[in-house]
C-alpha cells in the first residue's frame, strides 16, 4: 500500500517536471525508505501495461547502472519487457540485458527467442540491433546461435547489418575461442565486401581474431587501399595499422640502397634499424669510411624497384595526413616512417607538428613519437625546430618531451640557438623541468664536440645557483662530461670539491666524491682533505654517499697511502658497524683487498688495477633510442613495453614474396550485392599497370575471352554465309548467341559484344559509303572500287580480328596463354567469307540490330566496305533506330552516327591539281594494319579529260614519331572517274599535320593532312561505373570543365550525343545500366551524357561528360591524361554544341 502511494507521488512529480527525476537519484529516494522498497516499486512499474511507466522505470534502472549501483535483482522484471513495442523501452532493456546477462545466464536465455525473431525483421536497424545485443550477451550456451546469426548477417542485404556482423565476430571469439576457424571463414567473406562501411569493422575483427593470417589480406589489399579514403576515420586507423604490418611482410625495404643515393648520412638505416647513433661523429669517421666501402660493395646488387602495390599504399594514405582526426594522422605518419623511402618520409613532419596544437594529451602522445622519429630522421623535423620551443604554461610532461625532441634535433648548426633557448629554461620555476634541461645540455655537450666546453662552463656557473636541485643536477651532468676528458679540467674538479661543504643532495655529493676519487692524481692536495671532512660526517650521510666515501678512501689509500692510511682505516671501521649490510660488505671486501695482510691473497696485488682502471665515459643517450622497434603510435611504443595483443612489426623480408598473390581474379564469384562492382575490381587491377600495354601479342587470349569470341564470331560467320539465302535464320542464331552471352558472366558477355559489334561495324557500311561518293555516280563508282577494296579487306580483316583479340586479352591481363586457341581462332576468322553479303531490309533485321546495339558501343560505320544497298533504305533504318534510341535510354545512340557527319576535307583542289581533285575524310574505322594509326580515306576524282596514271605518294615529311602507311598505288584513273583508298597515319596523338607529296605520272603536289583532335581517338566501351572510376583517377590537371549553354536545337539527348560523337570519335557510355546496380536509380530529369575513348597512339583514356541542366545550361567535362588533347577537345566539343 505504501509502495503504491509512493509510486503515485513519484508519477505525479515526474509528469509535472516533464523530465523524470531519475537524474537526482538517490536524493529522490527520499520518498522510498529503503532499497528494497524502491526496487519493489520499479517492479510494479515494469509490470504495468503503460509504456510511459515502463519507460520511466527503465530510465531509473539505467541511471542506477550508469552510476555503478547494483540493479541485478530486477532482472526477471526487466527481461519480461524485452519484447516491448516501445522502441526506447526496448533499447533500455537491451542495455540492461547486456550489462547483467553474464550474471544471470539462465534468465537471460528467456530473451533469446526475441532476438532471433529480430534477426528476421524487415527493418535493418532492428536486425542489426538484435544481432548486436545477441552477440553482446556473454552466455556460453548460445554460442551456436550466435555463430549462426553472424554467418547469416554476414550475407545480409544491408551493409549496416554486415558491419554489425563484423563487430560481433570479436565478441564471439572472446567468448569462445574454439570458434576461431568458423569465424575466420566469416572474416574472409566480409573482407571481400566492397562497401566502405564494412571495411573498418572487419579489419578490426581480423586484428582481434586472426592477425597472423596475413594471407587473407592479399586478395583484398588493393581494394582496401583504394577504399581507404572513404572509410570512416576509426576504420582508417585500424586499416592503416594493419596494412603497415602487411607491407612489412610483402615488400622490400625501400631504403635498402639508400647509402648509394646519399653520401654521408645515409648509411645508418641501412645497417639495421637499431643502431644508428648519428650524433657522435668524432670516433665514427673511420667506421664511416668502412661502411662506405661496404656499402658500395652491396650496391652492386640489383637496383631496388618499388612494388606498385607498395607505391599504391603510400599514395593512397598520403591525403589522410590532412585528416582532422589525430589518430588517423598518426597512423599515416607511422606508416610512412616504417614503409616509405627515406626521401619521402619528410611529408609527415608537417602534419605531426600540426597535431602539437591539439589537446595536451594528443601532444603528449605525438611528442613521444616525434622523439623516437627524430633520433632516426633528424632532418625531417629540423625545419620545425621552433615549434618545439617551450612555453611556461605547458604541463611539465610536455615540457620534458619537447626538451627531448630539441636535444635530438641539436646539431652543429643549430646548437647555439638551442643553447640560448635552454638558458631561458634554466631560470624556470619548475624545478623538474630545470633538471631535465640540465640533462639535455649534458647530452648536447657529449654529442656535439664543438660546444662541449661552452656547455661545461655554463654548467659550472650553475654550480653557484641558489637552488640546490639545480646544482645537484649540474654536478651529476658535469661528472659525466668530465669523464670524457678529465685532464683538462682539474680546476673544475677543485671547484666541485669545495662544493661538498654546501651541497646536501646525496646524488650530487656521491658524484663529487666519485670524481675526486677517480681523478685524485689531478687534485693530490685536496683529495685527502675531502676524505677527512667526509670521515667526520660519515655517520650522517646517505647510503650512496657512504659507499662513495669508502670508494674514495680505497682509491686514496692506493695512490697516497702515506697521508690517508689512518683515515681509511677509520672510515672502514665506521662502515664495519653500519646499519646497512651493503656498506658493511663493501667495507669488509675493500679492507681485504687493499690492506696487505699475511693472509691476503694474490688479489691485493691487483688492487690498483681493479680500482683505478680506466673507465669508459658514459654515453648519454636518449631514452627514446631504439624505441622504433615498436610500431610507432602504438601503446607498446608509448610504454616502451609490449602490451597485450601487440603484433610485432616484422622486419623487411630479404626477398620479396610473390606479388601476384594480390592479383584479383576476374572470374571470382561475387556475392550478389556487390555484383555491380565487379567491373570496378577489374579496373583497379588495370590501374596498376599501364592501361593498354604497347607491346602486342605478349599474352594470348584468356580462356573466357576466347570461348566467348569464338561463339560470337562463329555465329557471325554462320550468319554471314547463310545470309544470302535466308536472312531470318541467321538472325535467329545471332539472337541466340546474344541472349546466351547475356546470361554469361559479365566480362564474357561484354567481350563477346565487343567482338560482335566489331563485325557489326561493317554492316551499316552502305549508309556511310553512299555519302562521300558524291552525286549520281554512286553506284558506278561503288561497283568499280568494290573488287579491289574487297580483296584488301579480306586479308586485313583477318589481321584485324586476331589483333583485336590480343589487345582485348591484354586488357584482361591474364597470365595464362593458349596458343592453340589463338590459332584456332585465326582459322575461324580466316574461313570467314571476306565480305558480307547484303542484308535484306526487313522488320526482323531492325530488331536484330537494336538487340545487338543493346548496351554496346559501335565504332563509326566503315565506309571501306562496299555493299550495294540503296540510300533510301539505310536512312529509313536510321530514323527507325533514332526512334528507338529516344524511347529507350539504354540503347546507345552512337550506333547511328549518320554517315553525313563524316566531314570531308579538301586535299587538292581541282584547279591546282590540274583536273585531279582529292578529298579526304577520317573514316573512323580502325586501321587494320596498324592499330596505332588513324585511318584516312582518300578519294580521288579525275575531272580532267585525260586519264591520270600511277597515283601514289612519296617523300613524307613528318614530325618525329609520326608514321604513315601509304595507300597502294592507283595505276590508272580514267577521266571522270572516282576512286577511294585508305591510308593510315600515326599522328602520335598530336594535331601536327602530316606533309607528303602526291604524285601522278606527270606531276607532284605538296599536300598535308591535319587531323582535328577528335579524330585522334577511338571509341572504347565502358560502363558507367568504370567511367566514374576512371574519371575519379583523372582529376586535377587532367580534368577540364567548361560551362556552356546549349542552343535550342541541341537540347535533346539525341542531339547532344550526335554532336559530340561527330566532333570526336568517342562512344557513348550507356547510362543507368539498372540491371547491374543493386539500387536502381531513377533516371534523372537532366541526364548526364558520358563518352569514352582512347587516343589512337598511346591509348590514353579520353572521357567526356556533358551534364545538362535546366534551360539548356550544361557543363562539359573532359578528363584526359594528355592535357593538350583535353584542352583542344573541350574547344572542339564546345563549338560543336553551341554553334
Amino acid at each position, binding site marked *: 500500500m505504501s509502495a503504491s502511494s509512493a509510486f503515485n507521488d513519484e508519477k505525479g512529480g515526474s509528469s509535472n517536471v516533464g523530465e523524470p527525476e531519475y537524474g537526482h537519484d538517490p536524493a529522490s529516494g527520499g520518498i522510498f525508505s529503503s532499497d528494497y522498497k524502491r526496487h519493489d516499486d520499479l517492479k510494479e512499474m515494469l509490470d504495468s501495461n503503460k509504456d510511459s511507466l515502463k519507460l520511466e522505470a527503465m530510465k531509473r534502472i539505467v541511471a542506477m547502472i550508469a552510476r555503478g549501483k547494483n540493479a541485478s535483482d530486477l532482472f526477471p522484471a526487466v527481461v519480461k519487457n524485452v519484447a516491448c513495442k516501445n522502441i526506447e523501452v526496448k*533499447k533500455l532493456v537491451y542495455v540492461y540485458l547486456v*550489462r547483467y546477462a553474464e550474471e544471470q545466464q539462465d534468465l537471460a536465455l528467456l530473451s533469446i527467442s526475441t532476438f532471433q525473431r529480430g534477426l528476421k525483421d524487415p527493418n535493418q536497424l532492428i536486425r542489426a540491433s538484435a544481432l548486436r545485443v545477441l552477440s553482446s550477451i556473454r552466455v556460453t550456451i548460445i554460442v551456436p546461435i550466435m555463430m549462426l546469426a553472424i554467418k547469416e548477417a554476414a550475407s545480409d542485404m544491408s551493409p549496416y547489418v554486415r558491419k554489425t556482423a563484423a563487430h560481433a565476430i570479436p565478441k564471439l571469439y572472446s567468448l569462445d575461442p574454439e570458434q576461431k576457424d568458423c569465424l575466420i571463414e566469416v572474416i574472409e567473406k566480409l573482407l571481400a565486401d566492397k562497401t566502405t562501411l564494412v571495411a573498418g569493422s572487419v579489419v578490426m575483427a581480423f586484428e582481434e581474431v586472426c592477425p597472423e593470417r596475413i594471407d587473407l589480406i592479399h586478395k583484398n589489399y588493393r581494394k582496401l587501399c583504394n577504399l581507404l579514403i572513404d572509410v570512416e576515420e576509426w576504420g582508417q586507423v585500424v586499416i592503416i595499422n594493419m596494412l603497415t604490418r602487411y607491407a612489412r611482410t610483402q615488400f622490400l625495404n625501400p631504403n635498402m640502397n639508400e647509402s648509394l643515393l646519399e653520401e654521408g648520412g645515409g648509411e645508418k638505416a641501412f645497417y639495421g634499424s637499431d643502431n644508428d647513433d648519428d650524433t657522435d661523429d668524432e670516433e665514427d669517421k673511420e667506421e664511416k669510411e668502412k661502411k662506405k666501402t661496404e656499402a658500395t660493395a652491396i650496391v652492386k646488387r640489383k637496383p631496388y624497384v618499388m612494388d606498385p602495390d607498395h607505391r599504391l599504399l603510400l599514395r593512397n594514405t598520403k591525403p589522410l595526413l*590532412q585528416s*582532422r582526426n589525430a589518430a588517423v594522422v598518426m597512423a599515416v605518419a607511422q606508416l610512412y616512417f616504417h614503409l616509405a623511402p627515406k626521401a619521402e618520409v619528410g611529408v609527415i613532419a608537417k*602534419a605531426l607538428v600540426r597535431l602539437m596544437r591539439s589537446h595536451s594529451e594528443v601532444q603528449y602522445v*605525438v611528442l613521444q613519437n616525434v622523439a623516437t622519429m627524430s633520433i632516426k630522421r633528424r632532418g625531417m623535423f629540423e625545419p620545425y625546430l621552433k615549434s618545439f620551443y617551450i612555453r*611556461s604554461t605547458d604541463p611539465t610532461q610536455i615540457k620534458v618531451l619537447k626538451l627531448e625532441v630539441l636535444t635530438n634535433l641539436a646539431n652543429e648548426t643549430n646548437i647555439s640557438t638551442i643553447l640560448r633557448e635552454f638558458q631561458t629554461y634554466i631560470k624556470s620555476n619548475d624545478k623538474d623541468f630545470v633538471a631535465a634541461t640540465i640533462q639535455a645540455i649534458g647530452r648536447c655537450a657529449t654529442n656535439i664536440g664543438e660546444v662541449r666546453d661552452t656547455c661545461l662552463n655554463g654548467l659550472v656557473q650553475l654550480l653557484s645557483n641558489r637552488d640546490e636541485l639545480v646544482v645537484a643536477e649540474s654536478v651529476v651532468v658535469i661528472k659525466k662530461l668530465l669523464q670524457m676528458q678529465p685532464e683538462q679540467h682539474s680546476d673544475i674538479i677543485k671547484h666541485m670539491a669545495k662544493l661538498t661543504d654546501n651541497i646536501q643532495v646525496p646524488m650530487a655529493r656521491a658524484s663529487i666524491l666519485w670524481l675526486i676519487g677517480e681523478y685524485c692524481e689531478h687534485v693530490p692536495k685536496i683529495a685527502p682533505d675531502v676524505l677527512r671532512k667526509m670521515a667526520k660526517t660519515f655517520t650522517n650521510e646517505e647510503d650512496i654517499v657512504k659507499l662513495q666515501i669508502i670508494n674514495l678512501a680505497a682509491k686514496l689509500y692506493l695512490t697516497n697511502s702515506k697521508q690517508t692510511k689512518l683515515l681509511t682505516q677509520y672510515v672502514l671501521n665506521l662502515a664495519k658497524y653500519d646499519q646497512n649490510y651493503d656498506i658493511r660488505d663493501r667495507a669488509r671486501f675493500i679492507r681485504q683487498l687493499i690492506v696487505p695482510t699475511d693472509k691476503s691473497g694474490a688479489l691485493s696485488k691487483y688492487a690498483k688495477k681493479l680500482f683505478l682502471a680506466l673507465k669508459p665515459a658514459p654515453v648519454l643517450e636518449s631514452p627514446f633510442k631504439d624505441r622504433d622497434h615498436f610500431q610507432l603510435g602504438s601503446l607498446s611504443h608509448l610504454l616502451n613495453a609490449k602490451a597485450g595483443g601487440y603484433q610485432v612489426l616484422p622486419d623487411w623480408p630479404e626477398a620479396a614474396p610473390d606479388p601476384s598473390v594480390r592479383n584479383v581474379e576476374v572470374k571470382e564469384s561475387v556475392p550478389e550485392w556487390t555484383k555491380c562492382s565487379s567491373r570496378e575490381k577489374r579496373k583497379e587491377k588495370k590501374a596498376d599497370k599501364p592501361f593498354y600495354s604497347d607491346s602486342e601479342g605478349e599474352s594470348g587470349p584468356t580462356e573466357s575471352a576466347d570461348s566467348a569470341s569464338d561463339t560470337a564470331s562463329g555465329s557471325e560467320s554462320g550468319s554471314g554465309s547463310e545470309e544470302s539465302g535466308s536472312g531470318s535464320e541467321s538472325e535467329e542464331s545471332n539472337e541466340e548467341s546474344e541472349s546466351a552471352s547475356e546470361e554469361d558472366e559479365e566480362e564474357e558477355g561484354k567481350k563477346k559484344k565487343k567482338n560482335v559489334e566489331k563485325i557489326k561495324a561493317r554492316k551499316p557500311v552502305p549508309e556511310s559509303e553512299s555519302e562521300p561518293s558524291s552525286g549520281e555516280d554512286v553506284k558506278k563508282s561503288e561497283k568499280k572500287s568494290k573488287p579491289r577494296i574487297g580483296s584488301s579487306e579480306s586479308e586485313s580483316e583477318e589481321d584485324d580480328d586476331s589483333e583485336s583479340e590480343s589487345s582485348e586479352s591484354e586488357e584482361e591481363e591474364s597470365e595464362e596463354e593458349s596458343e592453340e586457341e589463338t590459332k584456332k581462332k585465326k582459322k575461324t576468322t580466316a574461313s570467314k567469307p571476306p565480305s558480307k553479303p547484303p542484308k535484306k531490309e526487313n522488320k526482323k533485321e531492325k530488331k536484330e540490330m537494336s538487340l545487338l546495339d543493346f548496351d554496346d558501343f559501335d565504332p563509326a560505320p566503315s565506309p571501306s566496305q562496299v555493299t550495294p544497298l540503296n540510300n533510301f533504305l539505310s536512312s529509313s533504318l536510321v530514323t527507325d533506330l533514332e526512334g528507338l534510341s529516344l524511347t529507350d535510354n539504354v540503347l546507345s545512340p552512337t550506333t547511328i552516327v549518320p554517315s553525313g557527319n563524316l566531314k570531308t576535307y579538301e586535299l587538292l583542289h581541282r584547279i591546282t591539281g590540274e583536273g585531279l581533285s582529292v578529298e579526304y575524310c577520317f573514316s573512323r574505322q580502325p586501321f587494320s594494319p596498324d592499330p596505332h594509326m588513324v585511318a584516312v580515306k582518300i578519294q580521288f576524282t579525275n575531272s580532267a579529260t585525260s586519264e591520270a596514271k600511277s597515283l601514289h605518294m612519296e617523300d613524307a615529311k613528318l614530325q618525329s614519331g609520326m608514321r604513315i602507311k601509304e595507300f597502294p598505288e592507283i595505276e590508272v584513273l580514267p577521266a571522270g572517274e572516282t576512286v577511294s583508298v585508305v591510308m593510315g597515319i600515326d599522328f602520335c596523338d598530336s594535331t601536327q599535320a602530316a606533309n607528303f607529296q602526291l604524285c601522278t605520272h606527270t606531276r607532284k603536289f605538296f599536300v598535308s593532312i591535319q587531323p582535328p583532335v577528335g579524330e585522334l581517338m577511338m571509341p572504347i566501351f565502358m560502363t558507367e561505373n568504370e567511367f566514374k572510376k576512371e574519371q575519379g583517377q583523372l582529376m586535377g590537371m587532367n580534368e577540364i570543365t567548361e560551362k556552356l549553354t546549349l542552343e535550342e536545337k541541341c537540347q535533346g539527348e539525341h542531339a547532344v550525343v550526335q554532336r559530340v560523337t561527330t566532333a570526336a570519335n568517342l562512344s557513348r557510355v550507356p547510362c543507368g545500366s539498372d540491371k547491374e546496380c543493386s539500387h536502381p536509380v531513377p533516371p534523372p530529369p537532366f541526364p548526364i551524357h558520358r563518352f569514352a575513348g582512347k587516343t589512337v597512339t598511346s591509348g590514353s583514356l579520353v572521357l567526356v561528360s556533358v551534364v545538362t541542366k535546366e534551360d539548356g545550361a550544361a557543363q562539359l567535362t573532359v578528363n584526359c591524361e594528355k592535357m593538350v588533347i583535353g584542352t583542344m577537345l573541350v574547344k572542339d566539343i564546345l563549338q560543336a554544341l553551341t554553334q
Partner: protein
Amino acid sequence: MINSLFLINPSGEIFLEKHWKSVVSRSVCDYFLEAKEKALEPEDVPPVIHTPHHYLISIYRDKLFFLSVIQTEVPPLFVIEFLHRVAEMIQDYFGECSETVVKDHMVMVYELLEEMLDNGFPLATESNVLKEMIRPPTILRSVVNTLTGTSNVGDTLPTGQLSTIPWRRAGVRYTNNEAYFDVVEEIDAILDQSGTTVFAEIQGVVEACVKLSGMPDLTLSFMNPRLLDDVSFHPCVRYKLWESERVLSFIPPDGNFTLMTYHVNAQNLVAIPVYVKQSISFFECGSDGRLDVTVGPKQTMGKTVEGVMVTVHLPKTILSINLTATQGSYTYDNGTKLLVWDIGKLNPQKLPNLRGSLSLQAGAPKPEENPSLNIDLKIQQLAISGLKVNRLDMFGEKYKPFKGVKYITKAGKFQVRT
C-alpha cells in the same frame, strides 16, 4: 578496444561508468586517483597509466576526467581522440560539458555512449547520425513526449549511416538558406625580453555554420590559398580538388562544424599586433619588487585591438601587490598568485600602463625567474595572415543562399618572456 569509461570529477568521485565489454570494477580507477594525487595540476596527470592488468588512458577536459580502461594494444591517440569526441558530443547535445549536465541527463548520455561504441569499437560518432538515433533534448520535445508517449529514440536507421556522406542527413529543409563562415586566426608567439620574436606562427580555423536545404555542393575559394602552409579538413572536403586547384569543395554537414584548420608558418609573414614594454624587478636586499608593464599597438593593419588582457603567474613568494592601472582594471588572486589585467580596447594615443610594487614574503629569496606575460587580444574584421575568401559557389540546389564571411584575429599562445 575500449573496455570501459569512467567519468571522474576533480575531487575524485566517479559519477558515471559505462562498460562495453565485461564489467571492470571501478577499483581500477584507484591507480589513476593515486597518480592524480601526485600531480600538482590536473593537466600533469599522465594520459597513459600502466596498471598490472589494464591500461588507463585519460583526458582532462572541462574540469572532468574521462578515463577509459584498455586491456590490449590500441593506438593511444585512437582512444584519446575518441574521448574528446565524447566530450564534444556532450557539449553538442546539452550545450555544455559539465558534471551537472551529465548527471541531469544520465540516461541519455548512457544511451549515447551505447550507440557510439560497439564492443569498444566506434560505431557512430558523427553528430548528425547520433542525433537521428537519439534526438537531443529540447523543452518542447520533452513536453510533447510526456503527453504523447513518443520517445527520443529513432526507430529507423539514420540515412547517414549508409550513405557515403555520413555527416549529412537527408531531407534538410530551411526557409532561410544561409551559410556563414568565420575565419578565425590565432597568433602563437614567443617574444623575448627585448621584444624580438623568438617564434611566431598563425593557426587558423574556418568555422562554418551552414543551414541549407537539400544537398548543396559548395565550393569555397580563397584569394591567396598559397599562404596556407598546412591544412586539415573536415571529412567532407574533397582532398583531390584541394591538391589540384586549391579550392574547398564539399557537401557540408548540417549546422555548425569546423571546415578546416590551417597553419601559416613563415615567420616573417606573421605580424605581431602589439608590443609590450615591461620591467619586473626584485631588489636583492629587502623584500620588495617593482612591476611596470605597458602595452601598445604595433602592426594592426589599421584595425583596433580589443579585448586586451595580460595574465601573469607571479612567483609563489609574493606576499602582496600594490599596483595602479591607467586603463582597465586588474584582479589578483593571492591563492593562485594569478594577476589578470583586463585592458579592453587599445588606444594608440594613450597607452595603458600598469605599475606598482610587489612585496615578497619576509626572508624569501629573490625569485630567479621573472614571470612571463600571457597576452590575450582580439581584432575584428581582420585575418592577420591576409587570407581572404574569394567566393562561395553552390551547386546542386536551385535557391540562392545568403552567404557571409567574418574574420577575427585572436591571440593564441602569446607569451612574452621577461
